[in-house]
């Protein structure tokens, strides 16, 4: 049973993990087409930018590969049945967690190509900004990898199978799904920043600061997801054969996971708009940053509702 769960988890992990990075790379390549057709003379620089951008952008799917290989080949023991739930949860967590970061990393790559075609003189600034934005995009995938590694290597043999299995799969779903929105949203902000710098190279300082603040707030739903996962993994639940107890814990993970997707993307949209206009209207950078933060706080509220419901399901129901 443990092997069945490990192999299923490994398959889910790599399948979903490769999907995000491939979409992101495809988007970058599509934008590179446009950039090369606009400015064919600098196609060498564009390919160089794509090369370094994609090497960093595919980190999320390499995390997924690592977890999949660990699930397939590590001897995780043949002990308690609850380990099977933990291994399946690990695969689900990393697989979903790599999607957002993989797709999101494609945005700065694509916009950087277009920006370099427009402003070859500031290639270095755009590339640097692309790499910073792309690296920050990987954070939700790193959260997912942390949870997946904990699920693989922690000892859950002391936990009761009912409702422990649901808590561990819920832990995987919570961080994995919540990371989708945060990774995608962070990429939107990074893409807008590359575009903005190409339009107005002097705005690099303000645009990068706004991008980093916007990306940091976009990561919040993934942090909520991580928090719920930690509670589900570390809290000891009393044994209960009733299905409702298991479903409450699984529901907690589903609530936070799905509840984090929208706010992550919404926060990214807000950050994208703010960064875009900061680079066009540098003199209003402070005001735009305030509006962005207020907008993100409002957008965040739905993630907070999801977290509240998750906590009620864990502690009250």
């Amino acid at each position, binding site marked *: 049973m443990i092997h069945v769960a490990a192999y299923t988890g490994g398959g889910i992990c790599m399948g979903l993990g*490769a999907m995000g990075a491939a979409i992101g790379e495809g988007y970058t390549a599509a934008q590179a087409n446009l950039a090369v057709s606009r400015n064919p003379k600098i196609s060498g620089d564009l390919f160089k930018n794509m*090369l370094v951008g*994609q090497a960093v952008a595919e*980190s999320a799917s390499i995390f997924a590969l690592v977890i999949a290989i660990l699930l397939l080949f590590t001897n995780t023991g043949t002990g308690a049945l609850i380990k099977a739930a933990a291994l399946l949860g690990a695969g689900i967590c990393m697989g979903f967690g790599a999607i957002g970061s993989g797709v999101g990393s494609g945005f700065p790559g694509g916009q950087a190509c277009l920006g370099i075609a427009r402003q070859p003189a500031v290639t270095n600034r755009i590339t640097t900004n692309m790499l910073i934005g792309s690296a920050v995009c990987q954070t939700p995938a790193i959260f997912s990898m942390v949870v997946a590694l904990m699920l693989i290597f922690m000892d859950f043999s002391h936990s009761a199978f009912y409702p422990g299995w649901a808590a561990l799969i819920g832990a995987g779903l919570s961080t994995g799904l919540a990371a989708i929105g945060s990774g995608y949203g962070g990429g939107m902000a990074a893409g807008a920043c590359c575009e903005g710098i190409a339009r107005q190279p002097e705005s690099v300082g303000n645009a990068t600061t706004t991008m980093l603040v916007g990306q940091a707030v976009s990561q919040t739903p993934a942090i909520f997801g991580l928090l719920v996962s930690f509670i589900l993994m570390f809290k000891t639940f009393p044994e209960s054969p009733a299905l409702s107890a298991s479903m409450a814990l699984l529901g907690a993970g589903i609530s936070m996971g799905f509840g984090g997707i929208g706010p992550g993307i919404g926060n990214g949209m807000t950050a994208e708009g703010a960064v875009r206009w900061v680079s066009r209207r540098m003199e209003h950078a402070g005001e735009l940053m305030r509006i962005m933060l207020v907008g993100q706080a409002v957008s965040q509220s739905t993630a907070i509702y999801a977290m509240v419901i998750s906590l009620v399901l864990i502690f009250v129901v």
Partner: protein
Amino acid sequence: MRKKIQAAQKMETIKQTQKKYGTRAMTVAIIIAVGLIVIGEKAAGKGLVLGALFSVINFVLIGLTLPRTVGHGKRASIFISLASLLLRYTLLAIPLILAIKLDQFNLITVLIGIFMIQLMILLDHLPIPLGQTRVRQKRASS
């Protein structure tokens, strides 16, 4: 003729970038590995070099497949990217499986080695804005 020259220049730029980061990644990995072997962590040192080697191979393959992803529609680009990913990740799985199966290689240093190219790229670019900020601050103060 002009197209051929442009394609050759493009490949030359990619090769130079690959050579730059590939050399750095392997050099840093070997230096650290020698240090680890000297202090008695032979498996860790060997793992780091193994991971870095496959990281460089992966980077070279990205460079070879990149020009093929451009010049097609969005769907075709995504399909080519996915095929390229699957091929490269099959290769990247080799050092991980070796590290899990054999005690000669340390799994954690293999993992670090696999990200050596990414680390070199980020290290190469991250100090630039800090440097530029300092130059701007100096100019402003003078």
